[in-house]
């Protein structure tokens, strides 16, 4: 999908995107109030995701031909910032569904494949999961060991995928598995449905944060996958995985912006609430500085994110720009959340206050979909190539 009209003019979103932003903001306000409960109870925000599906938030990266709204990556970024500013567990579910699964299927599937899976994905009847990582392959994704053995008109998949977001709640899994020994060209991508024999949910991770989003192992035990569930061509899986991650990184960058914004808003409210006996602001200068620095970086890194999304919407490769966005925004989210806890003091460290949850949720943004150090190497190589 490419969006040809100008979406950002003079640093302002187009009227269409501003309207969409408001719609999502309303959704977040009305339907994501349970964020603290999802966290405390490690409960999947099922209803919130269902409502998102009804409002069309699960189809922004799908072409209209298949029931999508084709709003593209920039719109997805705008949306994800709003959602993640309120509930990060809902946010990552929608990010993975849109920025990884739907984006990937839209780009690499045949018409027949799209017509088969998108109707269920765009409504949220099905949720998607992206299964690349394994126990022995995190940042070094090409080291994956999961196998796909061709047998007549199908493949037999075996292995286990680790740290799968939405693992226990998804119905459709994009699985990267090894069709030959070649480290990179031996990897192929498949769609596997959760209902098939041999697909099961393994260990569920207990995590620092993001506790409303189930992160699980997905175990593949002699799963019979029809050959028409192979995506693109055999051996092109690693290319697909990396290309998709550019979009995924924009999703996580936006998630990080949302978290940062929530934390910065808390600090701002804290400053505004501190008054001396005569009603004048009494927050210390160092706190105001910290607030100013964080707020400035929030604006700056949002522009980085929007720039990369705009490039991707235009079909221009944006690996360097997406890596800049994710690297900067995710570090900001953590810095902002840590500052919020510090500046709010005791209140910031108790569970009655969102600051400590933001701090716990933020931490994953520097890890998944490419850790910060990987982003930095992508940036350095991209700029010096």
């Amino acid at each position, binding site marked *: 999908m490419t969006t040809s009209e100008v979406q950002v003019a003079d640093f302002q979103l187009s009227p269409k995107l501003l309207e969409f932003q408001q719609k999502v903001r309303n959704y977040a306000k009305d339907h994501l109030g349970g964020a603290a409960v999802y966290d405390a109870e490690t409960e999947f925000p099922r209803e919130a995701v269902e409502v998102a599906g009804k409002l069309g938030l699960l189809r922004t990266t799908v072409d209209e031909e298949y029931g999508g709204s084709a709003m593209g990556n920039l719109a997805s970024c705008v949306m994800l910032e709003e959602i993640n500013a309120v509930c990060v567990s809902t946010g990552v579910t929608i990010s993975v569904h849109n920025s990884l699964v739907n984006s990937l299927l839209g780009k690499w599937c045949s018409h027949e494949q799209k017509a088969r899976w998108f109707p269920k994905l765009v409504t949220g009847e099905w949720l998607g999961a992206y299964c690349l990582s394994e126990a022995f392959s995190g940042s070094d994704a090409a080291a994956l060991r999961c196998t796909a053995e061709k047998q007549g008109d199908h493949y037999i998949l075996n292995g286990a995928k680790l740290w799968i977001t939405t693992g226990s709640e998804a119905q459709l899994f994009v699985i990267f598995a090894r069709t030959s020994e070649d480290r990179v060209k031996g990897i192929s991508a498949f769609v596997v449905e959760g209902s098939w024999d041999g697909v099961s949910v393994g260990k569920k991770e207990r995590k620092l944060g993001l506790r409303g989003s189930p992160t699980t192992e997905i175990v593949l035990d002699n799963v019979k996958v029809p050959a028409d569930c192979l995506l693109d061509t055999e051996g092109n899986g690693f290319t697909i995985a990396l290309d998709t991650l550019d979009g995924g990184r924009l999703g996580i960058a936006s998630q990080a912006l949302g978290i940062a914004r929530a934390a910065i808003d808390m600090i701002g409210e804290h400053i505004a609430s501190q008054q001396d006996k005569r009603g004048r602001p009494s927050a210390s200068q160092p706190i105001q500085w910290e607030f100013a620095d964080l707020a400035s970086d929030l604006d700056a890194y949002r522009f980085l994110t929007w720039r990369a999304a705009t490039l991707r919407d235009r079909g221009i490769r944006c690996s360097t720009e997406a890596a800049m966005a994710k690297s900067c925004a995710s570090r900001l989210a953590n810095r902002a959340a*840590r500052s919020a806890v510090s500046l709010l*003091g005791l209140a910031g*460290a108790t*569970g009655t206050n969102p600051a400590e949850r933001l701090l716990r949720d933020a*931490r994953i943004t520097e*890890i998944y979909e490419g850790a910060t150090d990987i982003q930095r190497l992508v940036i350095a190589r991209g700029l010096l190539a």
Partner: protein
Amino acid sequence: MHNLQLTEDQDMVVDTVRKLVADAVTPKVQELDEHRGFAREWFDALAELGVYGLSVSEEKGGAGMGMLPFVAALESIGAQSSSLARLWIGQMQAALVLEDTGSDLLDEVAAGDKLVTFAGREHGFTVAGGKLTGKALMVPAAMEADLMIVAATDGDATVLVSVEAGACERSALRGLGLNSAACGAVTCEGVAATVLASGDDASTAIDRAELTAWLGVAGASVGGAFGSIEAAKKHASERIAFGKPLLVQQAVQRKLVECGRAVAAARQLAWHAARVTDLGECARDTAMQARIAAVDAMVLAADESIQIHGGFGYTVEYHVERHYRDGKTLEVLDGGNDSLRDRLAAATFA
């Protein structure tokens, strides 16, 4: 650990505590934390070692060993359990103010027969007519303590009082960290209080309790930082990426070097402050500096350690997420590092 500055006796205390940690604390710390279980068993084990009177003078029945072995021993505890470290710190604060105020509760507290917690000036408690009123958002050990010692004001005067913890309204906290330290919010509305000291005597005792917390938290945080660094080293030497152990990557090494440098500096500050204190001189500024530096180093080390662990670091089994939460929680206690910076400023530019 370089023993340049410890006497043989002091060294033995540190060693004994280290063994206790290895035998009793390490095997259970993650599980206890995850289920928010209280570290009673460990508290009692420390009591059996007799360390709650470690820094109490010999004439008052203590070991008279000063603050240095307290700080040093807290390192090995902090490397595993900030919760337990914090319990010891609270108990030591109590013991030392009871020593200062000549209270006959000292023996029971030093023996660990009573679990005590200390609520400092930052909570702003007040006393009127012998009744304590006020509210503390978070007090470690509050839910399990027998006794609470509180810094308060009575009119214009500073007072130090003790109250039965059971007489206060306490509610358990689902906080960021220190899950095994029974942290609670405490509300007192006219709770009967025993005045331990007032005026200058109270101020002196409260100052000592503060100093004890700063030094103790510094020691515990230095330990927490070492714990995170060790966990990262272990993981990075075992984990293979791109065909080699993670630990051979410059990137990983550099992170660990920088963390190691931060904690080494914080540790020297903490030990220096403890030594100066043990010489009977004022080390309040250095102790505040040490606390800030040590907690910052602990948070930095935990943060980098999580990063080096990758996805594993985000899960509870690898311990480092606990150090991250505990480090940030230690940071905001005792008024918090941010207000300590203001106090340092006030002390320096008064």
